[in-house]
Protein backbone atom coordinates (compact mmCIF):
# COMPACT_ATOMS: atom_id res chain seq x y z
CA UNK A 1 0.00 0.00 0.00
CA UNK A 2 2.77 2.46 0.87
CA UNK A 3 4.27 1.90 -2.58
CA UNK A 4 1.00 2.98 -4.24
CA UNK A 5 0.90 5.99 -1.91
CA UNK A 6 4.48 6.93 -2.85
CA UNK A 7 3.61 6.63 -6.56
CA UNK A 8 0.47 8.77 -6.13
CA UNK A 9 2.19 11.49 -4.08
CA UNK A 10 5.15 11.64 -6.48
CA UNK A 11 2.87 11.72 -9.54
CA UNK A 12 0.81 14.57 -8.05
CA UNK A 13 3.91 16.54 -7.05
CA UNK A 14 5.60 16.08 -10.44
CA UNK A 15 2.41 17.00 -12.35
CA UNK A 16 1.82 20.14 -10.27
CA UNK A 17 5.41 21.27 -10.91
CA UNK A 18 4.92 20.86 -14.68
CA UNK A 19 1.56 22.67 -14.55
CA UNK A 20 2.98 25.45 -12.36
CA UNK A 21 5.65 26.16 -14.97
CA UNK A 22 2.99 26.59 -17.66
CA UNK A 23 0.73 28.67 -15.39
CA UNK A 24 2.60 31.03 -13.07
CA UNK A 25 3.79 34.44 -14.25
CA UNK A 26 7.36 34.18 -15.54
CA UNK A 27 8.82 36.61 -12.98
CA UNK A 28 7.94 34.30 -10.05
CA UNK A 29 10.31 31.52 -11.11
CA UNK A 30 12.66 33.42 -13.35
CA UNK A 31 14.92 34.86 -10.67
CA UNK A 32 18.64 34.07 -11.12
CA UNK A 33 18.92 32.37 -7.71
CA UNK A 34 15.94 30.09 -8.44
CA UNK A 35 17.28 29.20 -11.89
CA UNK A 36 20.75 28.44 -10.48
CA UNK A 37 19.25 26.11 -7.86
CA UNK A 38 17.19 24.45 -10.60
CA UNK A 39 20.37 23.76 -12.59
CA UNK A 40 22.16 22.39 -9.50
CA UNK A 41 19.23 20.34 -8.17
CA UNK A 42 19.17 17.46 -10.69
CA UNK A 43 22.99 17.29 -10.65
CA UNK A 44 23.10 17.04 -6.83
CA UNK A 45 20.26 14.53 -6.58
CA UNK A 46 21.50 12.26 -9.38
CA UNK A 47 25.05 12.30 -7.94
CA UNK A 48 23.77 11.46 -4.44
CA UNK A 49 21.49 8.71 -5.78
CA UNK A 50 24.32 7.16 -7.81
CA UNK A 51 26.73 7.27 -4.86
CA UNK A 52 24.27 5.93 -2.29
CA UNK A 53 23.03 3.11 -4.52
CA UNK A 54 26.62 2.10 -5.30
CA UNK A 55 28.01 1.96 -1.76
CA UNK A 56 25.16 1.81 0.80
CA UNK A 57 24.30 -1.39 2.66
CA UNK A 58 21.92 -1.60 5.64
CA UNK A 59 23.67 0.30 8.43
CA UNK A 60 26.71 1.52 6.53
CA UNK A 61 28.86 1.52 3.41
CA UNK A 62 30.50 -1.33 1.52
CA UNK A 63 32.73 -1.85 -1.49
CA UNK A 64 31.24 -4.77 -3.46
CA UNK A 65 30.35 -5.94 -6.97
CA UNK A 66 28.08 -2.90 -7.44
CA UNK A 67 31.08 -0.53 -7.33
CA UNK A 68 32.86 -2.59 -9.99
CA UNK A 69 29.68 -2.50 -12.12
CA UNK A 70 29.31 1.28 -11.80
CA UNK A 71 33.02 1.73 -12.52
CA UNK A 72 32.58 -0.25 -15.74
CA UNK A 73 29.53 1.91 -16.54
CA UNK A 74 31.67 5.05 -16.14
CA UNK A 75 34.16 3.65 -18.66
CA UNK A 76 31.28 2.90 -21.05
CA UNK A 77 29.99 6.48 -20.62
CA UNK A 78 33.46 7.90 -21.32
CA UNK A 79 33.42 5.84 -24.53
CA UNK A 80 30.03 7.46 -25.39
CA UNK A 81 28.06 4.21 -25.16
CA UNK A 82 24.25 4.55 -25.34
CA UNK A 83 22.14 4.40 -22.15
CA UNK A 84 21.02 0.79 -22.51
CA UNK A 85 24.60 -0.41 -23.08
CA UNK A 86 25.83 1.51 -20.01
CA UNK A 87 23.19 -0.08 -17.79
CA UNK A 88 23.82 -3.56 -19.26
CA UNK A 89 27.60 -3.25 -18.78
CA UNK A 90 27.06 -2.43 -15.08
CA UNK A 91 24.69 -5.36 -14.57
CA UNK A 92 26.87 -7.87 -16.45
CA UNK A 93 30.03 -6.79 -14.60
CA UNK A 94 28.40 -7.17 -11.18
CA UNK A 95 26.71 -10.44 -12.16
CA UNK A 96 29.97 -11.84 -13.54
CA UNK A 97 31.92 -10.99 -10.38
CA UNK A 98 29.25 -12.60 -8.20
CA UNK A 99 29.22 -15.71 -10.39
CA UNK A 100 32.98 -15.92 -9.67
CA UNK A 101 32.23 -15.56 -5.96
CA UNK A 102 33.49 -11.96 -5.61
CA UNK A 103 31.41 -9.21 -3.96
Amino acid at each position, binding site marked *: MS*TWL*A*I*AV*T*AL*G*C*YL*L*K*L*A*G*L*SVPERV*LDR*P*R*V*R*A*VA*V*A*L*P*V*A*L*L*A*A*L*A*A*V*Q*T*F*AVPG*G*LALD*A*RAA*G*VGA*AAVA*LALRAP*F*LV*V*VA*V*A*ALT*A*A*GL*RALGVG
Partner: protein
Amino acid sequence: MTPAPTWQRRRRAVLRDALGVGVATGAYGLSFGAIGVAAGLTLAQTCATSVLIFTGGSQFALVGVLAAGGATVPASVAAVLLGARNALYGLRLSVLLRLRGLPRVVGAQLVIDESTAMALAHADDDRARRLAFWSTGLAVFVLWNLATLGGALAGQSLGDPRALGLDAAVPAAFLALLWPRLTDRATRAVAAAAALGALLLVPVTPAGVPVMAAALVAVVAGALWRDALLGRSREAAA
Protein backbone atom coordinates in the same frame (compact mmCIF):
# COMPACT_ATOMS: atom_id res chain seq x y z
CA MET B 1 21.65 30.61 -45.59
CA THR B 2 19.64 27.92 -47.33
CA PRO B 3 16.15 28.87 -48.52
CA ALA B 4 13.41 28.34 -45.90
CA PRO B 5 11.92 24.87 -46.33
CA THR B 6 8.24 24.64 -47.15
CA TRP B 7 5.87 23.79 -44.30
CA GLN B 8 5.36 20.26 -45.66
CA ARG B 9 9.06 19.50 -45.54
CA ARG B 10 9.45 21.08 -42.13
CA ARG B 11 6.43 19.15 -40.83
CA ARG B 12 7.89 15.84 -42.01
CA ALA B 13 11.27 16.68 -40.44
CA VAL B 14 9.65 17.56 -37.09
CA LEU B 15 7.59 14.36 -37.02
CA ARG B 16 10.58 12.22 -38.00
CA ASP B 17 12.71 13.76 -35.23
CA ALA B 18 9.88 13.30 -32.72
CA LEU B 19 9.62 9.62 -33.56
CA GLY B 20 13.41 9.22 -33.35
CA VAL B 21 13.49 10.84 -29.92
CA GLY B 22 10.61 8.58 -28.84
CA VAL B 23 12.42 5.43 -29.94
CA ALA B 24 15.64 6.54 -28.21
CA THR B 25 13.84 7.18 -24.91
CA GLY B 26 12.21 3.75 -25.28
CA ALA B 27 15.61 2.31 -24.36
CA TYR B 28 15.45 4.10 -21.01
CA GLY B 29 11.90 2.79 -20.61
CA LEU B 30 13.03 -0.80 -21.08
CA SER B 31 15.62 -0.49 -18.33
CA PHE B 32 13.16 1.34 -16.08
CA GLY B 33 10.62 -1.48 -16.45
CA ALA B 34 13.19 -4.17 -15.62
CA ILE B 35 14.64 -2.21 -12.70
CA GLY B 36 11.14 -1.42 -11.36
CA VAL B 37 10.10 -5.03 -10.93
CA ALA B 38 13.62 -5.97 -9.73
CA ALA B 39 13.21 -3.31 -7.03
CA GLY B 40 10.11 -5.06 -5.76
CA LEU B 41 7.32 -3.10 -7.48
CA THR B 42 4.52 -5.11 -9.06
CA LEU B 43 3.96 -5.03 -12.83
CA ALA B 44 0.97 -2.69 -12.31
CA GLN B 45 2.94 -0.37 -10.02
CA THR B 46 5.87 -0.19 -12.44
CA CYS B 47 3.58 0.67 -15.37
CA ALA B 48 1.51 3.15 -13.30
CA THR B 49 4.76 4.92 -12.39
CA SER B 50 5.56 5.53 -16.07
CA VAL B 51 2.02 6.68 -16.96
CA LEU B 52 1.40 8.90 -13.94
CA ILE B 53 4.82 10.31 -13.02
CA PHE B 54 6.20 10.34 -16.60
CA THR B 55 9.57 11.93 -15.94
CA GLY B 56 12.44 9.46 -16.04
CA GLY B 57 14.82 10.77 -13.39
CA SER B 58 12.04 11.01 -10.79
CA GLN B 59 10.86 7.49 -11.58
CA PHE B 60 14.35 6.01 -11.16
CA ALA B 61 14.74 8.01 -7.93
CA LEU B 62 11.46 6.77 -6.46
CA VAL B 63 12.20 3.14 -7.31
CA GLY B 64 15.83 3.39 -6.19
CA VAL B 65 15.05 4.85 -2.76
CA LEU B 66 12.16 2.42 -2.17
CA ALA B 67 14.37 -0.53 -3.18
CA ALA B 68 17.07 0.60 -0.73
CA GLY B 69 14.52 0.36 2.08
CA GLY B 70 13.60 4.06 2.16
CA ALA B 71 10.22 5.12 3.53
CA THR B 72 7.43 6.67 1.45
CA VAL B 73 8.17 10.30 2.35
CA PRO B 74 11.92 10.46 1.61
CA ALA B 75 11.39 8.48 -1.60
CA SER B 76 8.66 10.85 -2.80
CA VAL B 77 10.53 13.99 -1.73
CA ALA B 78 13.67 12.97 -3.64
CA ALA B 79 11.60 12.08 -6.71
CA VAL B 80 9.54 15.31 -6.69
CA LEU B 81 12.63 17.48 -6.18
CA LEU B 82 14.24 15.80 -9.17
CA GLY B 83 11.14 16.78 -11.18
CA ALA B 84 11.48 20.45 -10.21
CA ARG B 85 13.42 21.20 -13.40
CA ASN B 86 10.21 20.52 -15.34
CA ALA B 87 8.69 23.67 -13.78
CA LEU B 88 11.42 25.70 -15.46
CA TYR B 89 10.85 23.89 -18.74
CA GLY B 90 7.15 24.77 -18.39
CA LEU B 91 8.10 28.38 -17.88
CA ARG B 92 10.04 28.48 -21.15
CA LEU B 93 7.20 26.67 -22.93
CA SER B 94 4.43 28.89 -21.54
CA VAL B 95 5.87 31.81 -23.52
CA LEU B 96 6.40 29.71 -26.67
CA LEU B 97 3.12 27.76 -26.72
CA ARG B 98 0.65 29.96 -24.74
CA LEU B 99 -1.50 26.96 -23.80
CA ARG B 100 -4.90 27.64 -22.16
CA GLY B 101 -7.66 25.47 -20.70
CA LEU B 102 -7.70 21.78 -21.59
CA PRO B 103 -4.57 21.85 -23.80
CA ARG B 104 -2.66 23.26 -20.81
CA VAL B 105 -4.00 20.61 -18.40
CA VAL B 106 -3.14 17.79 -20.84
CA GLY B 107 0.07 19.36 -22.15
CA ALA B 108 1.48 19.79 -18.64
CA GLN B 109 1.98 16.03 -18.33
CA LEU B 110 4.10 16.13 -21.52
CA VAL B 111 6.49 18.82 -20.20
CA ILE B 112 9.75 16.82 -20.05
CA ASP B 113 13.36 17.18 -21.21
CA GLU B 114 12.74 15.86 -24.72
CA SER B 115 9.56 17.79 -25.65
CA THR B 116 11.07 21.02 -24.27
CA ALA B 117 14.31 20.56 -26.21
CA MET B 118 12.40 19.91 -29.44
CA ALA B 119 10.07 22.90 -28.98
CA LEU B 120 13.08 25.16 -28.29
CA ALA B 121 14.87 23.77 -31.34
CA HIS B 122 11.90 24.93 -33.48
CA ALA B 123 11.23 28.15 -31.56
CA ASP B 124 11.53 30.29 -34.71
CA ASP B 125 8.12 29.21 -36.11
CA ASP B 126 4.82 29.09 -34.19
CA ARG B 127 3.36 26.07 -36.01
CA ALA B 128 6.65 24.15 -35.94
CA ARG B 129 7.25 24.61 -32.22
CA ARG B 130 3.70 23.54 -31.33
CA LEU B 131 4.00 20.48 -33.56
CA ALA B 132 7.45 19.71 -32.12
CA PHE B 133 6.16 19.88 -28.53
CA TRP B 134 3.02 17.80 -29.04
CA SER B 135 4.48 15.19 -31.41
CA THR B 136 7.61 14.65 -29.29
CA GLY B 137 5.63 14.57 -26.04
CA LEU B 138 3.13 12.05 -27.41
CA ALA B 139 5.76 9.87 -29.15
CA VAL B 140 7.81 9.68 -25.95
CA PHE B 141 4.68 9.05 -23.84
CA VAL B 142 3.51 6.13 -25.97
CA LEU B 143 6.94 4.52 -26.48
CA TRP B 144 8.11 5.14 -22.90
CA ASN B 145 5.05 3.34 -21.54
CA LEU B 146 5.19 0.46 -24.03
CA ALA B 147 8.89 0.00 -23.26
CA THR B 148 8.21 0.08 -19.51
CA LEU B 149 5.67 -2.71 -19.94
CA GLY B 150 8.11 -4.73 -22.07
CA GLY B 151 10.97 -4.21 -19.63
CA ALA B 152 8.77 -5.10 -16.65
CA LEU B 153 7.55 -8.30 -18.33
CA ALA B 154 11.14 -9.25 -19.16
CA GLY B 155 12.25 -8.39 -15.61
CA GLN B 156 9.55 -10.61 -14.14
CA SER B 157 10.74 -13.62 -16.09
CA LEU B 158 14.36 -13.05 -15.00
CA GLY B 159 15.61 -14.59 -11.79
CA ASP B 160 17.31 -13.21 -8.67
CA PRO B 161 17.99 -9.47 -9.25
CA ARG B 162 21.27 -9.60 -7.32
CA ALA B 163 22.65 -12.55 -9.30
CA LEU B 164 21.79 -10.61 -12.48
CA GLY B 165 23.58 -7.51 -11.21
CA LEU B 166 20.44 -5.35 -11.39
CA ASP B 167 21.42 -3.64 -8.11
CA ALA B 168 24.43 -2.27 -10.05
CA ALA B 169 22.21 -1.28 -12.99
CA VAL B 170 20.26 1.24 -10.84
CA PRO B 171 23.24 3.44 -9.84
CA ALA B 172 24.62 3.05 -13.38
CA ALA B 173 21.33 4.49 -14.69
CA PHE B 174 21.70 7.50 -12.36
CA LEU B 175 25.29 7.97 -13.50
CA ALA B 176 24.18 7.86 -17.14
CA LEU B 177 21.50 10.51 -16.47
CA LEU B 178 24.07 12.63 -14.59
CA TRP B 179 26.94 12.33 -17.09
CA PRO B 180 25.74 14.80 -19.80
CA ARG B 181 25.10 17.44 -17.09
CA LEU B 182 28.75 17.46 -15.89
CA THR B 183 29.78 20.02 -18.48
CA ASP B 184 31.80 22.45 -16.33
CA ARG B 185 33.61 22.89 -13.04
CA ALA B 186 30.57 24.24 -11.16
CA THR B 187 28.32 21.27 -11.95
CA ARG B 188 31.15 18.80 -11.27
CA ALA B 189 31.76 20.44 -7.88
CA VAL B 190 28.03 20.22 -7.06
CA ALA B 191 28.00 16.53 -8.01
CA ALA B 192 31.09 15.73 -5.93
CA ALA B 193 29.83 17.61 -2.87
CA ALA B 194 26.39 16.01 -3.07
CA ALA B 195 27.77 12.48 -3.52
CA LEU B 196 30.30 12.83 -0.71
CA GLY B 197 27.81 14.45 1.67
CA ALA B 198 25.22 11.74 1.00
CA LEU B 199 27.77 8.95 1.62
CA LEU B 200 28.83 10.53 4.93
CA LEU B 201 25.18 10.58 6.04
CA VAL B 202 24.40 6.97 5.05
CA PRO B 203 25.70 5.31 8.25
CA VAL B 204 23.95 7.80 10.58
CA THR B 205 20.55 8.55 8.97
CA PRO B 206 17.55 6.47 7.76
CA ALA B 207 17.45 5.42 4.09
CA GLY B 208 16.34 8.26 1.81
CA VAL B 209 17.57 11.08 4.04
CA PRO B 210 21.08 11.30 2.47
CA VAL B 211 19.48 11.92 -0.94
CA MET B 212 17.15 14.59 0.47
CA ALA B 213 20.21 16.26 2.03
CA ALA B 214 21.71 16.55 -1.46
CA ALA B 215 18.96 19.05 -2.25
CA LEU B 216 20.50 21.33 0.39
CA VAL B 217 23.81 21.14 -1.48
CA ALA B 218 21.94 22.39 -4.58
CA VAL B 219 20.42 25.30 -2.63
CA VAL B 220 23.80 26.35 -1.19
CA ALA B 221 25.50 25.94 -4.58
CA GLY B 222 22.76 28.03 -6.21
CA ALA B 223 23.76 30.89 -3.90
CA LEU B 224 27.56 30.42 -3.98
CA TRP B 225 28.09 29.58 -7.66
CA ARG B 226 25.04 31.28 -9.17
CA ASP B 227 26.80 32.85 -12.14
CA ALA B 228 28.87 29.77 -12.98
CA LEU B 229 25.76 27.57 -12.93
CA LEU B 230 23.70 30.01 -15.01
CA GLY B 231 26.53 30.42 -17.53
CA ARG B 232 26.16 26.71 -18.16
CA SER B 233 22.37 26.86 -18.54
CA ARG B 234 22.60 29.76 -21.00
CA GLU B 235 24.98 27.78 -23.16
CA ALA B 236 22.69 24.75 -23.02
CA ALA B 237 19.68 26.84 -24.05
CA ALA B 238 21.48 28.53 -26.93
